[in-house]
């Protein structure tokens, strides 16, 4: 079974999660299509991890409908597990095993679910190459550095050649180079195997680089859903224009910077220097969004 590009891989309607009297998720709707990379963004406590754990089938929801790869993750069969890959935060398991041993053993579990399109498991050699752990293949896990450990987690996540991959803060603890290599790896998976990816992250630049679509979660709801570009436009259509003139700095905010700059340069007698036009970045958008919704929550 392979999920075709464009079909719904995840469908969530009115998802609710309640701990005691506190609603952590308060009516979440979302769709993820085959081959898409979707980033879940949100402040701490917004419900990102709860959402992803419900989708992974690790947590039972309080209400709503959830379909992931055609099954309800709360009671999905084991064959469903074989089609889903999971990379979580803070794993310290299998300390005394060697890298190769862990990948061989966990790969074994996927063998009965091999298909012509998705041969399972992925060969260990190929896997080590992909995540850059070939030289550490015979190291016990407890001797790996934080970054290597994370690469191993990613390797385990994709050992079964998943159709859908969940990544929870995948690059926490990576240096910039390792982060870029990881981004290349995700792009390669998506391009070569049509893997659908759902990730949570704190890094806006990461979401911007990786994701086709960003969902912003705040106060237990999805408050924004769109491509990084569309998001930046939807919230703030105002741009900032900065320039210098006669040794003085000027800043001006306006909705139509092109017209403003044309006018500015037409009447400046050649005195304007250091002209800079800055569109709202994703970060501006995100901060505004979260602030706006937190304010609404508080006023309710």
């Amino acid at each position, binding site marked *: 079974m392979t999920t075709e590009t464009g079909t719904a891989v995840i469908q969530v309607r009115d998802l609710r999660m309640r701990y005691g009297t506190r609603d952590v998720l308060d009516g979440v709707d979302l769709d993820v299509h085959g081959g898409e990379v979707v980033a879940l963004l949100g402040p701490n406590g917004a419900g990102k991890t709860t959402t992803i754990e419900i989708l992974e089938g690790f947590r039972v929801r309080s209400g709503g409908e959830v379909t992931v790869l055609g099954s309800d993750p709360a009671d999905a069969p084991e064959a469903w597990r074989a089609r889903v890959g999971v990379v979580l935060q803070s794993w310290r398991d299998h300390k005394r095993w060697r890298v190769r041993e862990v990948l061989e053993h966990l790969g074994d579990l996927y063998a009965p679910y091999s298909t012509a399109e998705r041969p399972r498991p992925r060969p260990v050699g190929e896997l080590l190459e992909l995540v850059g752990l070939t030289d550490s293949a015979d190291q016990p896990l407890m001797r790996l550095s934080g970054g290597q450990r994370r690469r191993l987690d990613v390797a385990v996540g994709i050992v*079964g050649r998943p159709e859908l991959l969940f990544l929870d803060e995948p690059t926490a603890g990576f240096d910039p180079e390792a982060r870029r290599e990881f981004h290349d790896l995700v792009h390669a998976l998506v391009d070569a195997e049509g893997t659908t990816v759902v990730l949570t992250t704190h890094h806006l630049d990461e979401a911007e680089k990786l994701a086709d679509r960003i969902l912003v979660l705040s106060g237990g709801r999805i408050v924004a859903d769109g491509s990084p570009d569309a998001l930046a436009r939807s919230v703030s259509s105002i741009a900032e224009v900065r320039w210098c003139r006669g040794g003085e700095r000027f800043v001006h905010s306006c909705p139509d910077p092109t017209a403003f700059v044309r006018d500015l340069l037409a009447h400046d007698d050649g005195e304007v220097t250091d002209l800079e036009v800055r569109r709202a970045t994703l970060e501006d958008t995100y901060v505004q969004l979260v602030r706006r919704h937190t304010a609404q929550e508080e006023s309710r």
Partner: protein
Amino acid sequence: MSTTTQPFRAGLRRGWREFLISLRNPEDLTFYLFWSGAVVVYLFLNRTTPVEGTTLTLPQVVLPGALAAMVVFGGLVGPAFALVIEKEDGTLLRMKAAPHGVRTYVTAQVVLQSLGLLPLLVLIVLPVALFAHPLMHRGAGGWVAVGALLVLALLATLPLGMVIGAVARKPGQVSTWGLLPVLGMMAISGIFVPITALWGWVQGVAQVLPMYWLGHGLRWAFLPDEARVLEAGETWRVLEALGVLGAWAAVGLLLAPRVLRRMARRESGSAVEARRQERMQRFG
């Protein structure tokens, strides 16, 4: 490849691999050598001590009880600690994320904990056989009986050990709620002190617990008939031994799947993370 037997075969391989890993681990080797060494030295120092009322020596009479103590202790405490630690470090969650991973994990635990007792048994029985001659009075049939009793003892203890590990939230709880009762059971089960030397009600308690009965069964399998004068009532009660061990096995096998399923259902990334936070606070 069949998907129904695959988890069991993968579990056998996983258990075997974990066993090999433990054999290359210095801490585990030290553990084996220390405990077997302690028992062997004690028995060696008392190798000529006669046992009153019989023609036997102390090592011959004590060895079956010592084996019983080790098997029951290892069968209960071993999986309990393994489970609580591997819940905390995320091993169990890792397995849950793979198809049939929890079933594979549980199978592997049974294999690992059973195999893990072998080095200890071998390191005790072989040297003791050299100075406590003869160790086995009932020939090949006696060894078969020993093997069967050990299997029954594992059935009576491993599932319950897993239940303790599954219910405990942190290793400290296994130490208090798991380890202490087992040590208490060891004290009253006629391993170190003949059970007939204890108060009546303590004898009653001991005779509900598996350790006394495994010791009794093993003494019956190893020793000549005359040794029955050392037992409560001066008689062999093999059927009772099988009955009590069987009852514990039944309780464990009924309880374990339910408790393990419940435990597996609750595992999630945030559960592991919460325990990690708690652990970091514990160690400041």
